[in-house]
């Protein structure tokens, strides 16, 4: 059995007193890129937030890099090498672009990523580094959010709907950069509403519906008919 960078069994998540996830079994090996697809409200974002400890969860096991992380606070899980690009980017308004990037490295994990490395991948950010984070266009803000997550030198990068609200050409550019980023053995979980885009980059696909995994497999093995049925449940 190859080493699993991340494995969850029976993961359940709650918002207040109603349940959002109903027992998710998921695993990912180092270097793999997995796409999680599903319609609005299927529990995709909740899954990512559960992994980093931002949502109340119950589970049989949640192990990351060989250690149990269930119930740990977010800052401990982040320090262990997990990083999330949040839905809607959510840069810090009172911080400049460069400050938004540097705060990504707050947990000071060693690795290839620093300000210069991010500026080489996203050169446009270097010119705009003293501007407030939120004064940039949607696409540029997405680059900052991605760069900020990379600055933590994560073993596992979680991306939540990075194509949201962006023009198609910008989405293509972001995904090209993502491909270059994941070339050097970074493991990525990609939550994406845009199924075609997700299938193009993923080694494996999980389809969520109403808080459950309804389909899992390699993109090549799954027919479009099967995905649409899983996606809509009809």
């Amino acid at each position, binding site marked *: 059995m190859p080493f699993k960078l991340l494995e969850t069994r029976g993961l359940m998540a709650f918002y207040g007193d109603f349940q959002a996830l109903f027992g998710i079994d998921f695993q990912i090996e180092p270097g793999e890129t997995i796409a999680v697809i599903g319609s609005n*409200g299927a529990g995709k974002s*909740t899954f990512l937030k559960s992994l980093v400890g931002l949502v109340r969860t119950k589970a049989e096991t949640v192990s990351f890099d060989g250690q149990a992380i269930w119930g740990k606070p977010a800052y401990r899980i982040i320090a262990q090498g997990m990083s999330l690009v949040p839905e809607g980017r959510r840069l810090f308004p009172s911080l400049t672009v460069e400050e938004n990037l540097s705060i990504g490295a707050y947990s000071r994990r060693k690795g290839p990523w620093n300000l210069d490395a991010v500026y080489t991948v996203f050169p446009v950010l270097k010119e705009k580094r003293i501007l407030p984070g939120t004064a940039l266009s949607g696409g540029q803000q997405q680059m900052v959010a991605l760069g900020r997550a990379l600055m933590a030198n994560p073993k596992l990068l979680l991306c939540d709907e990075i194509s949201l609200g962006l023009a198609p050409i910008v989405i293509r550019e972001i995904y090209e950069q993502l491909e270059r980023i994941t070339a050097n053995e970074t493991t990525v979980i990609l939550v994406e509403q845009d199924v075609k885009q997700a299938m193009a980059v993923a080694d494996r696909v999980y389809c969520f519906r109403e808080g459950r995994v309804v389909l899992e497999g390699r993109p090549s093995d799954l027919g479009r008919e099967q995905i649409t049925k899983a996606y809509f449940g009809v």
Partner: protein
Amino acid sequence: MNETIRVERSSRASRLFAVFGFLLVGLLVAAPFFGNRSVLYLLVEIFVYIALASLWNLLAGYTGLVSIGQQAFVGLGGYSLFALTIFTGMPPLLAVLVAGPIAALFAIPTGFVVFRFKGAYFAIGSWVVAEVYRLTFAQVSVLGGGSGTSLPVEIVQHIANSRLERDSVIYWTGLGIAVGVLTVIYLILRSRWGLALTAIRDSEAAAESVGVDNYRTKFLIYFLTAGATGCIGALISLQKLRISPDAAFSVNDWTAFVIFIVVIGGIGRMEGPLIGTILFFILREFFADLGSWYLMFLGLFAIVMMLIMPKGIAGWLAERFELQIFPLGRRIILPRDKHISFSQFGTSAISKKRSPTKITDD
């Protein structure tokens, strides 16, 4: 099918309490005939705090207006009574009632200022305005300035000739105001205005978009509460026969204790202030002579309650035992089975168990 469904406003428990309530009030009315002077004085203090706590609960618990400045209207009411009786010779008991509208008039400019604040800033802003009133009345030498003044003897005589009669008249006024305030609040909360207030408290944006005029409703409640608080202030100063800026506008007596009472008793429920007041006076009777130790304990007790029991005793009782003295909610009574008509069944409410439905949320 649904014509057979009845919207029920009161439950068996609340009807029971209503009967008990009437009996209690009847007993209280008779109190002066057998209670001694200090018992009457204590009972008036209890009426005062029940009314003040219920009014503050209406503001903060139901409308979301957390004010630390209601002592402004207690003071305004008190000074209105003194001014009316001394300068216009108005009979003191009438002055108590007239003091209310006067305090309410002051609430208009005050409200215009403090409503520019939101949330925690509204709390401190209202405190500053109360301080302005306190300092202003300290400069009014004709009403005793900083050290305050006493009610002239002839006015005191005007209440009633013998001391016992005076105590009884003040007692009945206090009882009347307390019962009146509770009744008016109950009627407000049971009316459409009760719906509007709790809607504003729960979500201002949603309330405005379903037709509630937030600003005017909040201002109206602020205005009415100020008036009622003014009446109580007048009663307090009449009972004490003395008034001074620091006593009339005291943040500790008329706001700190009131907030502790409402929060420990249970904020956002009409039962809260009642339970809180009774508990507060029990503590005071036993521990008050410990002086600052008692106040230290009260401060700590409020902190602990807020941390472990934010809904207060009334909230805990409501959740554990479904206890509701004041029937303010609306419940529908469903026929137990769809095809059997309702009339065959008594007031059996639908089962309370929460079915674990599946949901998705992104």
